C-alpha cells in the first residue's frame, strides 16, 4: 500500500508531501523525505516494555504498575517538572497540561533550550510573520541569520524559501537574493549572494547598526561594527530595503549566542522598521516538528506559551524562574516527567546532574540517554507514524499527522490518561 501526502515527524518544516510504502503493516519505503526525515519515519530500536527501577536496575513491568509508580512520584512531589513535548502531537500536550494542573507542577517544552528566547522577544515586540507559502510566492530576498537550513532543515530552501517557485517568484533562485549572517562559513552561506561573517556574540550590535542604516542614521555609525565594514552593512541594509518582499529566518545561532532574547527583540524591531520601506517578515526556524504546537496549545489552555507553573492552582509564567532549565538548575524540582524529548542529551551538564538526582518518569518510543537516569520508563507509540494527531509547522500552521502502521504500544495521550487516572485516585484516597 502507498500512503500519499504523509507528514514528516522530524523538523519544523513539517513537510506534508511524503510518500510512504507500507507492506504487512510495516514501512518499506519512504520517498521525497530528506535523509533526516526518512530515518525518523522508518524508526529504530524501540523500548520493549515498561520498566521501573528496582535496586538501581530497570526491570520490566506492566503498564498498570508503571502508571501507578509514575503517579505516585508526581503526586508526592512538591514541585514536579513536566518537560519535553516537542516530538509528540497536540493531543498529548493537552493531557500533559491537564496532568500538570492535577499535580501542581511546572510544565515546559524544549523551547527552554531552543527558541524560548524567541518567544520572549515576541512578548516584547510582537512578530511580523507569514505562512511559508507567502514566502514561497512572494519573497525575493531571504535572510538566514544564525541558521543553517542546508543541514538542519534540508527541504526548507526548495519548498519554501531560496529555491522555491511561486506566483510572483516563477524564476526560483534566480529571482531572489540571499543574505546569510553567521559566525562561520556553512553550507547555507555558500548559497548566499551576501555573507556577513560576524564575531561570536556581536549579533545585537550588528542588528542595531542595520537599524541605524534603515532608519536613515547610517552616517553616525563607526567605520566597522563587530568586524564588519560599514560598507558591507550598508550594502546588506540596502538589499533589504530594495526587496519587494523580504523574509528573515533565524536559528539557534541568534537565540543562543550572547544577547539571547535581546537579539531576537532587536531583530523583530529591524523587521518592523523595514516594513516602512517594503514588505518584510521574520520567523524562527523551529527545530523539532511540533515544539511550535506545544506553544500554541499551552497558550490557549493557560494563557502562556511555555514555562507554566501550576503550584498555586493557577498559571504563573516567568522564564528565568519557571523554565525547565531554571527549575532544575536552581534545584527546585523534586521529580520530573519527560515526554518525547531527551534532556540528558540537550541540557547543560550541570543541569543534567540535577535531573539525575531526582525521580524521573520517561514516556518515549525510543531509548535515549534520558532513559539511563529514569526511574519509570513507559514506551509509547510513535506519533505521526503510528498515531494520528495535530502538529504545528514553524509558521504556526496546523496540520493533521497520519497513522501509517498499527502499534502494540499505547499513544502518549493514552499513557498520560493512565497516569492522570492514577493521580486522581491518589487524590481521592487522601
Amino acid at each position: 500500500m502507498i500512503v500519499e501526502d504523509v507528514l514528516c515527524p522530524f523538523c519544523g518544516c513539517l513537510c506534508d508531501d511524503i510518500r510512504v510504502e507500507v507492506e504487512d503493516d510495516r514501512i518499506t519505503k519512504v520517498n521525497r523525505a530528506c535523509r533526516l526525515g526518512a530515518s525518523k519515519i522508518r524508526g529504530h530500536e524501540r523500548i520493549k516494555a515498561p520498566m521501573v527501577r528496582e535496586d538501581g536496575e530497570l526491570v520490566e513491568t506492566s503498564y498498570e504498575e508503571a502508571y501507578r509508580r509514575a503517579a505516585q512520584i508526581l503526586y508526592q512531589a512538591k514541585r514536579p517538572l513536566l518537560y519535553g513535548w516537542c516530538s509528540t502531537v497536540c493531543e498529548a500536550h493537552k493531557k500533559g497540561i491537564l496532568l500538570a494542573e492535577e499535580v501542581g507542577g511546572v510544565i515546559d517544552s524544549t523551547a527552554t533550550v531552543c527558541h524560548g528566547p524567541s518567544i520572549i522577544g515576541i512578548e516584547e515586540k510582537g512578530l511580523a510573520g507569514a505562512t511559508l507559502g507567502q514566502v514561497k510566492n512572494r519573497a525575493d530576498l531571504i535572510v538566514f541569520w544564525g541558521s543553517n537550513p542546508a543541514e538542519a532543515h534540508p527541504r526548507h530552501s526548495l519548498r519554501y524559501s531560496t529555491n522555491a517557485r511561486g506566483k510572483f517568484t516563477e524564476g526560483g533562485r534566480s529571482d531572489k537574493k540571499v543574505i546569510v549572517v553567521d559566525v562561520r562559513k556553512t553550507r547555507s552561506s555558500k548559497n548566499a549572494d551576501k555573507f556577513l561573517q560576524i564575531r561570536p556574540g556581536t549579533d545585537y550590535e550588528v542588528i542595531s547598526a542595520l537599524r541605524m542604516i534603515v532608519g536613515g542614521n547610517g552616517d553616525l555609525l563607526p567605520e566597522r561594527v563587530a568586524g564588519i565594514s560599514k560598507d558591507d552593512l550598508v550594502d546588506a541594509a540596502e538589499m533589504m530595503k530594495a526587496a519587494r518582499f523580504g523574509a528573515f529566518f533565524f536559528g539557534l545561532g541568534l537565540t543562543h549566542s550572547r544577547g539571547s532574547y535581546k537579539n531576537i527583540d532587536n531583530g523583530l524591531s529591524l523587521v518592523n522598521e523595514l516594513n516602512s520601506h517594503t514588505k518584510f517578515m521574520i520567523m524562527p526556524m523551529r527545530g523539532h516538528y511540533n515544539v511550535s504546537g506545544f506553544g500554541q496549545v499551552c497558550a490557549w489552555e493557560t494563557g502562556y506559551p511555555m514555562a507554566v507553573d501550576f503550584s498555586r492552582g493557577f498559571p504563573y509564567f516567568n522564564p528565568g524562574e519557571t523554565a525547565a532549565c531554571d527549575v532544575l538548575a536552581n534545584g527546585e524540582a523534586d521529580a520530573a516527567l519527560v515526554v518525547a524529548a531527551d534532556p540528558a542529551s540537550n541540557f547543560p551538564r550541570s543541569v543534567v546532574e540535577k535531573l539525575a538526582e531526582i525521580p524521573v518518569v520517561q514516556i518515549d518510543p525510543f531509548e535515549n540517554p534520558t532513559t539511563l537516569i529514569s526511574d519509570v520508563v513507559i514506551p509509547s507509540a510513535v506519533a505521526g507514524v503510528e498515531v494520528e494527531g495535530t502538529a504545528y509547522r514553524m509558521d504556526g500552521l496546523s496540520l493533521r499527522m497520519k497513522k501509517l502502521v498499527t502499534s502494540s504500544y499505547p499513544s502518549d495521550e493514552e499513557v498520560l490518561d493512565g497516569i492522570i487516572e492514577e493521580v486522581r485516585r491518589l487524590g481521592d484516597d487522601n
Partner: protein
Amino acid sequence: MIIKGGIVYDPTNGIFGEEMDIFLDGGKVVEEAKGEEIDAQGLLVMPGGVDAHTHIAGTKVNTGRIMRPEDARSGLEPKTKILRPCTGYTVPNCYAIGYRYARMGYTTVFEAATPILEARHTHEELEEIPIVDKGALTLFGSNWEVLECVRDGDLDKLAAYVAWGLRASRGYGVKVVNPGGGEAWGFGGNVKGLDDPVPNFDTTPREIIRGLVKANEMLNLPHSVHLHTNNLGKPGNYTTALETLDIVKDIAPTRDRQVLHVTHMQFSSYGGTGWRDFKSEAPQIAEYFNRNDHVTMDMGQLIFGNATTMTADAPLEYSNARLLHAKWSNHDIELEESSGVVPLVYGRKMPINAIQWAIGLELALLTESPWKTLLTTDHPNGGPFVNYPEVITLLMSGAKREEEMATLHELVAKRTVLPTIEREMDWGDIAVMTRAAPAKVLGLAEKGHLGVGADADVTVYDLRPEKIDPARDHKRVKEALGRVKYTIKGGEVVVRDGEIVAVPRGRTYWVDASVPEKDAERVQADLVDKFDKYYSIQKSNYMVQDAYVTNPVVVKAGVI
C-alpha cells in the same frame, strides 16, 4: 424543567415582560414539562445571549495571548473540582472564555474571522471553549480564487468556491474584511476605497463585495455576508461606509434577513479629514439605517482600558502600531488573507478614544430599531466581552452616560451628539440587541428566543424588572447582568448564583452548501492547480478533518 414565574422578554415571539412559566425538555423549549423547578418568581428572564461577533479562537487570538504575557497576569482563577484555571482579560484562555460568557447568561458565541488554511487551529480552540455553542465565520475577501472569479464575472464558480471554502473550514458564514486589502498587503500595500484596484488581480473592493453578496444569496446561506469595511479606523471613513451600504441595495436576500451585515460600525463612522478634526458621523450612519431595511450592523462599542486589537485588516494594524509605537504582530496567510494584532489602551482623556466611545452609543441610540444594531464590543478590539453589562447600562441609563461623560475629554461634547440624546432603552430593546436580533442576523432559528422548539438556553437575572429602574439603579443592574442568577444551557443549569455548576460541551455550527456538480468540478480544477503551484501544503491535507469538530450542528444550504 420548569422555570417558574419569571418576567419574560422574548421579542421574537412578541413577549415583552409577561409573567409566565417556561418548560424545557430534551434540550428544547416545549409546551409542557415536568421535573426540576427553577424559582424565577418576579425575576427577569430572557433567552440565552447570542454574540454574533467576537474574536475568541484561532491564530490571531493565540498570537494575542503569546505576545501579551502581561495580559494573562489578570483574571486569575485557580482550578477547582470542575473548573480549569483561568487567565487573562483581553485575551483570556479558552476556559475563561466559556465560563465568563456563561456567567453573563450568554450561551451562543461566534468567532468572527477565520482563514480557511488555518481553520483547523480555530476549531482546536473552539473545541476547548466549554459550555457555549459556537461557530466561526470564514474569510473570503482577499482570497485568490475569489478575486479571480470576481474578475472573470463567474458567479457560479464563485458560489461553488464559497461552498467549498465553508466546508473546508467548517465555517458558518462569509466574512469579508477590507476586501482586496489583504492581498495588496502581501506586498505592503492597501486599497484606499471601493474602486481602488487590487494589485495583480484586476478587480476592486466594490466588485468583491457585490460578487460575494450575490454568491452568498445564490447559496441561500443562513447568514448574510459579514463585512468589515474598507478604510476602517480612518477619519472620514463614514462616506466609504455609506457607499458600501448602498452598493448592495439592489441585491435581494433569499432569506428573511438583511443582505449585508456591517460589523463594528463604530470603527466606520468617522468624520473629519484627519485626527485633528476627527469627529462622529454616527448620526448620518444611523439615519441611513432608519431609512433602509436591507442592512444590519453591530456596535463595536469601545471600553476604556486595555484592549487587544486583532483583525484581518493587516495594514490598519501596521499603522496602529506605528502610530502608538506599540507591539505589532502580523500574519499573512498564503493565497487567502493577512492579519495583525496590536495591544492598546483606550484612555478617557484621549480625545479620539472619548469620541470613539460616544460613537458606539450614538449608533445604537440613534438607530430606531434595535433589530438593526447588535450589541458587541468587537471583543477584544473595542474591549473585552466581559464589559457587556457596562454597555447595556450605558444604553439604559442617561444618568450613567452623563456620569461617564463627566470623566472624559471635553471634546466628546463638541464632536458628538451623545450629550443631546435622551433615549433610554428598556429590557425589550436589550433582549432584541443581545438575543433576538443576533440570532436572526445569523440565521439561527433555534436561538435567541423561547418559543416551542427553541434550544433550551435561558438566562434568569437576579433583577426584578417590575421593581427596579435601570435608568436610576444602573450600578445594581450592571452587577446583576455580570453575575446571573441562572444560566441554563441545553436544558441544564450551568450557572447558579453567578457560579459555574456544570460544564457541558457546546456544539459547533457549520454550513454545508450544495452546488451544481459542474461548478464544483471547475473549482476543483482551479484548486488542483493552485495547490500544485502556490500553496505550501498538499490539497489532501487542507480541509478541516471531522476529528476537529466533534460535536457539530451541520446546517444545510445550497442551490440544488
